[in-house]
């Protein structure tokens, strides 16, 4: 079986508290990455305007661990997850505005990746602008579902926690499946950092080199956050929650 290791980080917008980070992350445990054939990663990014996003993204990424997200099952799976979200939210006593806000639902973008170590392949599902990058021999050979910087805007596809507000989930969801070669690098990123990767790449840079270096430092969470905050202050990276996973294959 192909071996891999990963580094991940999720950090709130500059100026926000850690508990206000509405991104969420699913990553394998130490034993899973060592012994399991199928390894799952997922990230989810909350729309600024919705409430109870953290809970919704938490249910979505943890749902990816044991529920089926293929085309035929997606609607039922999301419906089941949304029932859990609704039961939690409806049991909290809320002031009038929080009640009315909750009635409009929470909204998230989502990307899930399942790696098959036996077959050296992966498959992925995306709703919205969380992005996957596959790098081979120091070149970007594939990105999914976003193809270039221009595709980022303020209206990404979203998964609603209330099924009646969900527009055509089956049409919004995009799927892919690819092979993995030895020494490939897969990057999974929420929109702000993904947009930066595209922007740098499109001007001839290899931004995955910077990210790989940063995430190799011993105290990489602090170093990455400092680096990110500088980029945010220089308006090079949008001030948004950021989640990033780098998966290195041997």
């Amino acid at each position, binding site marked *: 079986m192909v071996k891999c290791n990963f580094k991940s980080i999720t950090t709130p917008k500059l100026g926000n508290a850690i508990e*206000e980070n509405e991104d969420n992350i699913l990553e394998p445990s130490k034993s899973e990455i060592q012994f399991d054939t199928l390894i799952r990663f997922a990230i989810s990014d909350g729309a*600024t305007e919705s409430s109870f996003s953290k809970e919704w993204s938490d249910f979505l990424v943890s749902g990816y661990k044991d529920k089926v997200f293929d085309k035929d099952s997606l609607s039922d799976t999301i419906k089941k997850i949304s029932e859990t979200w609704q039961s939690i939210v409806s049991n909290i006593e809320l002031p*009038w505005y929080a009640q*009315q806000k909750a009635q409009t639902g929470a909204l998230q973008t989502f990307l899930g990746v399942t790696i098959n170590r036996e077959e050296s392949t992966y498959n992925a599902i995306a709703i919205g602008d969380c992005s996957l990058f596959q790098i081979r021999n120091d070149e970007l050979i594939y990105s999914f579902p976003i193809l270039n910087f221009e595709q980022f805007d303020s209206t990404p596809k979203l998964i609603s926690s209330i099924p009646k507000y969900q527009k055509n989930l089956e049409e919004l969801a995009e799927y892919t499946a690819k092979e993995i070669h030895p020494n490939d690098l897969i990057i999974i990123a929420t929109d702000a950092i993904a947009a930066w990767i595209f922007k740098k790449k499109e001007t001839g840079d290899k931004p995955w080199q910077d990210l790989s270096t940063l995430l190799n430092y011993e105290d990489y969470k602090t170093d990455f956050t400092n680096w990110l905050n500088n980029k945010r202050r220089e308006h090079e990276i949008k001030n948004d929650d950021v989640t990033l996973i780098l998966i290195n294959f041997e």
Partner: protein
Amino acid sequence: MAYTAEISRTNPSCFLFIIDQSGSMSDNYVSAGKPKSEALADVINRMLQQLVIKCAKSEGVRDYYNVGVIGYGANGVGAAFSGNLSGKNLVPISEIANHPARIEERTKNVSDGAGGLVPTTVKFPIWFDPTSSGGTPMKEAFKQSNSIIAGWLNQNPHCFPPVVIHITDGESTDGDPIEEMEKLTAQSSSDGNVILFNLHTNARSTNPLSFPGQEVQLPDQYSEMLFKGASSLPNFMREVASKEFSLNLSDSAKAFVMNGDIDLIITAIEIGTRASLQLMR
């Protein structure tokens, strides 16, 4: 580039409404079948409700905005909130959320999720009550607004610029307010000048004009004054007008409406308030 400042709890923005409460505001809108003052109070209360909900998160309401409502009429000029907020000029949105004067129940048609509508009882918070009597001290209203906005900008020099929305149906009775309007739109943060909407409303909505440019022919001095005093619509607001309301406005379009019915007034308020919500962080 102007009008790009991030709106956050550490760098909030503000909306100020200046509402004509003179006697003529008691006339019924033909289209809505209720007095202009009542229909406008509903619009302001609904806008405040929507803004509160936009700023609400699971832990509470984030103070992305301060909002004020100034009224002018028989009682002169002053803060127009009812209840606990009475007498306050610019109020943080979390305080507005937690202190409606009362919460009424109203019937609203809500989507049933299957393409139909079902009448549902909804909570409708009230912060601002209609009133209409006396003259139209518009000049003094703008004088006080200038002072309120100057105070805000002094405290928030790098904010997304304040948006001031003035709604009236009549002529000023305390002198020409144009100098005060020009003073207001000359005020600025490091992100750009204050944006002033002059929205003239009319019970019958005869010959309405919406967001005209420099080429417009106006019927009288009074409408020329409101047109001249209003800001030019910044590009980002024209984009909202185009994307959300299919209004293709000229580059010189002004934040100005003449003889607008209640629907046109709502559209103008949406253009004035919705655009900046995209900058909330």
